[in-house]
């Protein structure tokens, strides 16, 4: 009892086992890159020195990300350690697939951490969002129009833009701006405006043929809508709309039909349309429970192994048990985000934290479900792990938003210094700590 009382002020912070785990995580990555260096050397591949550099640099980044950030910003350490682990895992796996991609992802990781910190600061301190939201709405729509005006087509979707020699995917960045705008509108009960904005964005995404991202936007906004209004009618209507849209798409577009057929039986055309799914499943089966070992498999045969299919690579070389652990880490991130949403006192921040968590959760579900043939495959990235600067930065920004909201809540819960000794601000009992 006594101990509990002593820790009373501390309990307002979310308790985390981060400090104990971080050493282990750093060791994991140090050994991982060391192993890769040894393997590359024995194979006679060039670039093993880079692996040695990364064996120090990545654990250092993890250390800075997990323990350094809380020194300058009162963030959520559990969230930090989980996301940093996944990002570093992405660098490791990508380096194993292709050293150059690994290096470039390490750079993306660094940029992402900085962007995350930026988002965290913004959402910690800005309280009046009204004027900003109008701007954000414009930015969202503008960014989504950009690829239609002068974008380049990659893998059938026209969602890629190169500006000033710097290529990026606007739909990834719009994730955040759109969610902020929609959640603010919903918190002000401007439901129709929120629906209109989402509808316009979805339409633009459809024009870019970026159906995977459209699905994520749709699911996330629908969830936020239901959370804000509690209207079952709207939820059912939204679901019926999605089902109807899917049916119309299935009837109208040959490629959608083909994708569903491939999902139902990829083995029928295992050398053609079903090749990717079949090779993904085989890679998982080759790995088995314990995996083949880093560097010992042949993940190169899986199409998009560094991107949409990176989860199967993880199962292939690290084993299915490790894959399950990775999924549980994603779930922990999502649930942590949701607990942040439940602790905050403003409807806007609660909705925003919820949407960010749901976005991450849905994205993971959609791509991993596609990988293991639970649902038809839609091309979205695996958050934090897949190769790609925009995707990694936007995922980390979503976490940054959560960090900011968490810090804001903590600051509000802390009794003002002048009234030291009085009871802490009232808060819900039984809430998760």
């Amino acid at each position: 009892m006594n101990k509990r009382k002593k820790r009373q002020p501390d309990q307002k912070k979310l308790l985390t086992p981060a400090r104990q785990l971080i050493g282990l995580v750093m060791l994991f990555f140090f050994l991982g890159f060391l192993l890769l260096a040894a393997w590359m050397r024995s194979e006679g591949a060039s670039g093993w020195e880079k692996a040695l550099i990364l064996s120090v640099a990545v654990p250092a980044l993890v250390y800075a990300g997990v323990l350094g950030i809380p020194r300058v910003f009162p963030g959520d350490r559990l969230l930090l350690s989980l996301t940093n682990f996944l990002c570093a895992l992405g660098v490791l796996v990508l380096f194993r697939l292709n050293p150059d991609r690994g290096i470039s992802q390490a750079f993306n990781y660094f940029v992402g951490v900085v962007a995350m910190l930026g988002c965290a600061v913004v959402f910690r301190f800005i309280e009046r969002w009204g004027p900003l939201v109008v701007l954000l709405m414009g930015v969202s729509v503008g960014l989504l129009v950009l690829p239609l005006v002068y974008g380049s087509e990659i893998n059938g979707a026209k969602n890629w833009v190169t500006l000033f020699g710097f290529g990026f995917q606007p739909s990834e960045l719009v994730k955040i701006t759109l969610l902020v705008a929609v959640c603010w509108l919903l918190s002000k009960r401007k439901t129709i405006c929120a629906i209109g904005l989402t509808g316009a964005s979805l339409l633009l995404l459809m024009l870019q043929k970026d159906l995977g991202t459209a699905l994520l936007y749709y699911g996330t906004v629908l969830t936020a809508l239901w959370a804000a209004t509690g209207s079952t009618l709207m939820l059912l209507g939204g679901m019926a709309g999605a089902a109807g849209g899917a049916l119309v798409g299935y009837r109208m577009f040959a490629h959608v039909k083909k994708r569903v057929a491939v999902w139902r039986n990829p083995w029928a055309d295992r050398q053609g349309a079903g090749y990717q799914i079949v090779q993904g499943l085989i890679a998982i089966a080759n790995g088995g429970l314990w995996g083949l070992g880093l560097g010992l498999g042949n993940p190169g045969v899986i199409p998009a192994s560094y991107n949409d299919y990176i989860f199967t690579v993880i199962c292939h070389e690290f084993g299915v048990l490790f894959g399950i652990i990775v999924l549980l880490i994603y779930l922990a991130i999502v649930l942590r985000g949701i607990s942040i949403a439940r602790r905050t006192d403003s409807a806007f921040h609660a909705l925003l934290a919820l949407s960010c968590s749901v976005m991450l959760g849905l994205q993971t579900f959609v791509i991993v479900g596609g990988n293991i043939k639970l649902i038809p495959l839609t091309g979205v990235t695996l958050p934090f792990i897949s190769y790609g600067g925009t995707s990694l930065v936007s995922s980390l920004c979503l976490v940054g938003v959560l960090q900011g909201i968490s810090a804001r809540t903590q600051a509000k819960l802390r009794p003002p210094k002048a009234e030291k000794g009085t009871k802490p601000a009232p808060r819900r009992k039984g809430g998760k700590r």
Partner: protein
Amino acid sequence: MKQLRTNIRRIAFVLAALFALLILYGGYSLSNYGSRWFSTNANAYLRSVKKDVIPGNVLDRNGTLLAGSEVVVYQDGTLSWNRVYAEEEDVRRGTVHALGDSQGKVSNAVESFMASYLYGFKQNVWDRLSDFADGRTRQGDTLTLTLDADLCGYISRTVSRDQSLPSHVRGAVVVMNWQTGEVLSLMSFPSFDPAADESLVDRTNQPYFNRATQGMYAPGSAFKIVTLSAALRSPTLQNRSFTCGGTFLPDGDPAHRIVDYGTDTKEGVVVSHGQADLKTAFALSCNNIYAYAAAQMGDDFLRAEAMKYGFNENFLFRDIVAENSSYPDEDRSLWEVALTGIGQSRLQMSPLHLCLITAAVANDGVMMEPRLLMEAASSAGRTRLTYTQSEYRRVTDADTARTIRDAMLLAVNSASGTGGAAALPGWTVCGKTGSAELDGQENTNAWFTGFIADARAPYAVTVLLEDTGAGGTYAAPLAGKIFQWLIAK
């Protein structure tokens, strides 16, 4: 705000459920299909690893070598291997469809489906470390199969020398122990010699195709086992007597005439069996009475019974990959339902499945899972896996199974039964013939499926010979010879 918090909590549950779904579905599909994904020939990893591992030996139940590795050492010390097969050519030809070949031309056979053993994937860390410490090249596990090499050789010899059969006859033979589910022979014709040079293989009639497990055939009258099982359950049919008048018109349309085997309307020959009960009609293989019974029971009733016997089921046996049998799902005319009762009309099954059904009847209604793998042992001699028999499912109750057995006994042993050619003096042999008609084929497919109802020789045999003629004339004598060999052992 309170409502919002409640809603948010609900959403957390939904998301957690989605992740649980991912993990559960992934685990389910990996445990059920993982070995199948692994062993397909689309697995590039498996192909690449084959160079570094010496695949283990494959033995039959008596220890005869079916396949082994001949290691070649080059002057620079590197190793390579060639797959060698059984000494006798008849044994090689008789076992090749169950065993497969190292190039994977026969799909889903032991050499590919059990690659995880043969290529050392079941090795644990200690096995690998001890191989590494001794400087040995990795060596796969030795497998002992339930196959009987002598029996397979005997059947292969008998079929190839039988002058009454056409050359390159297509067909399949399955021999099982109906008590345990052990598969003694799993053969497909025409066969080929895996030891022969590839260019010398006679490719007539697809020798690489395993008809016993992958072939899909109309069972013809052999399906009457299932029809009888259903009829015995129907209160209006089980004890009554029927009259066979030679023709049966299920829906009154003369074009939809169902006649008995041997009837030739052009020649004016009409075969009719007169008064008979279900058992007698079964022994006579009377189409009229069984088509009538099927029409009386209806499609749903018959389908439900067929599904109990494994139709429309996704077979996931541990050792054998078998094509799934199908009983049509859609609404059909009465004529088609009547035809189904005698095993025609888009009913499809593999010879292995018919053997399983026969074995289940012999085993008082309990279908055993077919097993091919008796033992797996590591290269160091440590046993990795031993045979365990397991029930696949109960297909019918023991009383019904015994009644079907009596009817099958009558079919082989009564004077007018169709399966007389399979009879063995002094042994209770039960069986059923089938002569399935196929469009675009001159002769019928000859079927015989039967078993010895004796615990001293608990064997079930299914024979299919395509495009030959009546089951009683072509398939039953071969089954009789196999029974003879089995009891003489």
